C-alpha cells in the first residue's frame, strides 16, 4: 500500500495550481517517501511555514500513507525565476 507519485502530483496540481512541480519518489517504489519542489502563485506573501501548511493540507489524504515528505522548495514563480537564474549564472561562471 502506498501513494503513487501521480496521486501526489494530481492532488497538488488541483489544489495549488503550481506553475512548476517536481515530485520525487524516494521510497524505492513503496510510495511512502516523497520529496517535492513546488512553485505556485498562491505562495505569494506567505511565510515558509504557511506554504508548507498549504502543501500538507493539499496532501492530507495522502499523508496518511506517506511516512516521510520532504518539501525541498516551496517558492513563488518570482523566486523560482531568480533561483534558476542565479544557478545558471553560477554554472556559467
Amino acid at each position, binding site marked *: 500500500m502506498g501513494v503513487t507519485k501521480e496521486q501526489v502530483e494530481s492532488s497538488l496540481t488541483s489544489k495549488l495550481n503550481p506553475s512548476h512541480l517536481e515530485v520525487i519518489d524516494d521510497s524505492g517504489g513503496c510510495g511512502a517517501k516523497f520529496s517535492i519542489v513546488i512553485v505556485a502563485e498562491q505562495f505569494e506573501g506567505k511565510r515558509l511555514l504557511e506554504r508548507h501548511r498549504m502543501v*500538507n493540507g493539499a496532501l492530507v489524504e495522502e499523508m496518511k500513507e506517506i511516512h516521510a515528505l520532504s518539501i525541498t522548495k516551496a517558492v513563488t514563480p518570482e523566486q523560482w525565476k531568480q533561483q534558476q537564474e542565479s544557478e545558471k549564472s553560477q554554472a556559467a561562471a
Partner: protein
Amino acid sequence: MKKSGLSHKLETNEISGSFPKESGVYAVYDSNGDLQFIGISRNIAASVVSHKNSVPQLCSSVKVGVVDEPDRTALTESWKSWMEEHIAASGKVPPGNEPGNSTWVRQPPKKKADLRLTPGRHVQLTVPLEDLIDRLVKENKVVAFIKGSRSAPQCGFSQRVVALLESEGVDYESIDVLDEEHNSGLRETLKNYSNWPTFPQIFVKGELVGGCDILTSMYEKGELTSLFKS
C-alpha cells in the same frame, strides 16, 4: 611544512567568513600580540569562532596554517613544529597549552536530559495535555519535539534538526514524541495543537517554526542564527 604567515585581525561577527574551513593549525594572539594558544582543528574557521565567543578578551588576532593532506600525523607534526618554534623563541609554552589549562579546549557540552510530560504512564495528568504543551512551548524559548532522545534521535529528520540546533549552540529543550511511557498521547495532541502533521516540530517562543525542511532551508539562507538570538 606549510605555514602561512597571514595574520587575520579578528573582527566581531565577520570572523566566520574570513578563515579557511580546512584542517590545520592556528595560533591565537591577545591584544598585546602575545601568543595565547596553538591549536589543531578540522575546521579552523569554526574553532576560531568558538574561541572568539568563549574567550573574546584573549582573541585579538589569529595566524593560520592550512595543512594540505590533513591526516592525524601531518596535523600533529605541524602543530609540534609551531610549538617548538614558539618555545625556541620565547622559552615557554603558550599559556593556553600548559597542562591543566582548559580555557581553549572545548568542554564536551553537557547533554541536557529530554523533558518528560509525566513521571510515568500511571500518572494521570491534572490538566489537559493541550494546556501542558501550550505552557511548555511558551515557558521555554526553544523546544524541539523529536522522535527519539536528543542523544539518540530515531529518525533522520529529527537527527538533522538536533544537529542544526547543536551546531548553532542553541540552548533548547527536547521532548521525545515516541516515549509512550512518559509522553503518552503527545503525538496526536501535538499534531492538532500545532496544525502540523509531522515530526520533528520546533517551537521558538511559543510559535511553531516548522520541521526539518524549514529549519534546513533557514539554515542554508543563514537565518537560523538570528532566529535563535532574538
